[in-house]
């Protein structure tokens, strides 16, 4: 049976009531692995409290950090400080300078492009250098802000067609900032098909691709891991 993941949950409030409701919804929707965005400055005991509330319902929790650097040097210094502490590292590219570095740095797992900024678009020239996966958040389609939904749809379809032609993995996530913005994985995959993905590709974007990212990073963060293909056997 296919396992599903939603690796972008950035809750505004993280009190026990919100977390319990979120956990119940996640379980009902059939999501197995969830990536929760935690601030870089969050204390260790707070992080373990969040993890405990969510894991109580049988959900596998991965910690994620969203970086929003202004330039290349800030991105590199942020990556140095967070890579060993979080299971998922995502970068929102605010400029082409940041995108060019983030897309080829092996410490970056996920890249997202701001949908409301036309100047930052996916460039085909970067395609061959991509190591990271590109993330599309369904929340951008649900609450489109001041942009009409058809414009957001058109931009996302454009990104998907370019990314597909470069064989870059796509991750579809909810991007929920409150429990009511959560969506079930098969519904998220259905949105992927609306954006121009094949049915199987869209299902992979909510299951195998994000799960592979989490599993690889957990392996890398373990004490036995040395480098690709090398690990310490005790």
């Amino acid at each position, binding site marked *: 049976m296919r396992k599903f993941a939603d690796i972008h949950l950035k809750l505004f409030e993280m009190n026990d009531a919100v977390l319990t409701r979120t956990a119940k919804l996640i379980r009902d929707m059939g999501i197995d692995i969830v990536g929760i965005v935690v601030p870089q400055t969050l204390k260790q005991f707070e992080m373990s409290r969040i993890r405990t509330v969510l894991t109580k319902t049988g959900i596998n929790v991965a910690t994620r950090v969203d970086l929003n650097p202004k330039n290349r040097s800030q991105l590199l210094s942020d990556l140095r400080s967070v890579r060993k502490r979080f299971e998922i590292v995502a970068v929102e590219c605010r400029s082409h300078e940041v995108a060019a570095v983030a897309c080829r740095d092996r410490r970056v797992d996920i890249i997202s492009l701001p949908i409301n900024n036309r100047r930052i678009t996916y460039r085909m020239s970067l395609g061959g250098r991509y190591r990271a996966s590109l993330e599309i958040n369904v929340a951008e*389609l649900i609450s489109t802000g001041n942009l009409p939904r058809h414009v957001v749809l058109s931009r996302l379809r454009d990104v998907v067609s370019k990314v597909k032609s470069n064989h870059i993995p796509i991750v579809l996530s909810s991007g929920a900032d409150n429990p009511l913005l959560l969506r079930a994985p098969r519904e*998220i995959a*259905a949105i992927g098909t609306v954006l121009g993905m094949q049915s199987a590709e869209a299902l992979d974007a909510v299951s195998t691709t994000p799960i592979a990212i989490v599993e690889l990073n957990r392996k890398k963060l373990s004490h036995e891991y040395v480098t690709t293909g090398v690990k310490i056997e005790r």
Partner: protein
Amino acid sequence: MPRKPSRYLLLKVETDDAIPEEAIHLSVTESVLTLFGETGLAEISPRLFDYDEKTLTGIVKCTRGSVDKLRAAIALISTCAGKPVSAYVQAASGTSKALQTRGQSRSRDT
């Protein structure tokens, strides 16, 4: 004329308040209409029935080839009768009877 094959989806709505059946049906129809237009609505022809206001679950019928489209439209529902909601499909089946039994067993569990 042969009958068109249908699929049935067990729809669950998550919200803080009670929502009447008409409001849910209207939200589903409007979402399909916004996303796929009138031809899409005619092709999908969604119909809500067996809705339970206590458990906020109902069954949506659609044509067989349009399940993905209906799921996408359901995912984009964010408000219903002016209240914020999250709608999702709990199960899909070829018969409504299978979903009715599943819905009853789920409501017993909760």
